[in-house]
């Protein structure tokens, strides 16, 4: 858990900073899904790309919702939590994807990310001192739990699939 943030004193984090952290977590995940969607498009895997764009939209929605809440409470007060301080809290890991991955595998990558985020917020909720911050982290943790369930449902609804695409015809790189 300590390798997920740098220079953030989670135990003493303020409500404003906790909300900013939450916004950045969603932003990071959104950016990662966008990268993944781009990667899949570049490698001619439209199905996986479509799924990652779908996830991108969801994370973007979460991000704006949280950002709105933050603005409501703290207006335009400057942010002291920065993107550079967090490391893949809800963003799926770069090594979770493959050029020829199936949609099921793409969902698996998402599930892994939601699980990571759940674990992060659970640990964070256990560390913080202030009640209102604890509430926020607990709320975020529960959201991640719901997401996990949703992704699991999606996986269950997928038709059974064959082996991954054979990549013998991949273009010769430069």
């Amino acid at each position, binding site marked *: 858990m300590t390798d997920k943030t740098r220079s953030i004193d989670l135990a003493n984090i303020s409500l404003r900073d906790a909300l900013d952290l939450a916004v950045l977590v969603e932003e990071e995940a959104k950016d990662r899904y966008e990268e993944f969607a781009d990667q*899949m498009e570049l*490698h001619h895997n439209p199905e996986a790309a479509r799924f990652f764009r779908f996830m991108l939209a969801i994370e973007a929605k979460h991000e704006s919702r949280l950002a709105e809440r933050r603005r409501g409470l703290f207006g335009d007060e400057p942010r002291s939590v920065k993107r*550079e301080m967090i490391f893949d809290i809800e963003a799926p890991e770069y*090594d979770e994807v493959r050029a020829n991955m199936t949609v099921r595998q793409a969902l698996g990558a998402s599930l892994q990310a939601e699980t990571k985020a759940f674990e992060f917020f659970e640990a964070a909720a256990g560390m913080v001192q202030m009640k209102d911050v604890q509430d926020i982290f607990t709320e975020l943790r529960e959201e991640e739990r719901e997401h996990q369930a949703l992704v699991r449902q999606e996986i269950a609804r997928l038709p059974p699939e064959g082996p991954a695409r054979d990549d013998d015809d991949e273009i010769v*790189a430069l």
Partner: protein
Amino acid sequence: MTTTNAPLPTYQAKDYKSELKPIWCPGCGDFGVVQAIYRALAAIGRPPHEIAFVSGIGCSSRIPGYTTAYGFNSVHGRALPIAQGIKVASPELLVLVAGGDGDGFSIGGGHVAHAVRRNTDITYIVMDNQIYGLTKGQLSPTSPKGLHTVTSEYGSLEEAVNPLLYVLAYGANFVAQGTPADMAGLAEVIEAAIRFPGFSFVNVQSPCVTFGEDDQQVKNHRATMQSLAKLGHDPTDRLAAMGLAQKYGKELHTGVFYKNPDPPPTMNALIKERQQVLSEKAPPRSRIFDRFLQT
């Protein structure tokens, strides 16, 4: 009220990210490396136009193009000489060099020792994946002995190069290793390497997702990596560092192997000193031929 203790950066990681989309295979270790570089650069805060980022040829050598710095994606194995020329000519620039293990320890292997002893203030990041990925899976200098590849049908007959041990033995004053499995740690060593005055070397174990060994992927790194700091390694002890570096290929150590606590002056500092002393009594350029007059 603030709950952070870091100074606020003028530049953010995203300011160093270009709009070019990486052509790397999805899952490649290099995605994490470039992220770590963005973060290290943001922490240092030099504007992108004051950074020159040189590479050779290979998958990893595409990396300058994914940053907003001035980039030079040169030819195979020659990134180090070009980078040193840039740094000597324009010492005010932040100069980064990146490439793969083939670039650094095979075709360009002869340049590393000299970059070390020349000690210009540049940072060399090698993305070491033990394979030639761009040309589709041939042996690389760091491939383990016995590895089966398309150019070693029956297993390679050669011992692997040990980049860490080589560079330590060449006398480098800053040697570190990282993996994209620990992006925070990687960003930290890259930042420390850039801040170090003089030639610094970071070996990044950056697995090839397409041609690499299944048990050498980022997932495996997460399970096996050991932080040198946690092992209690003293990074000012070169011999201890060399002892640990012997484990290259068997154990994955992350962090700083060696950092000279008393770094010698860089070549740039020595050049500046010489220029100052000698320019004082120099005739103008226009009188450069006077020395040939027979007086």
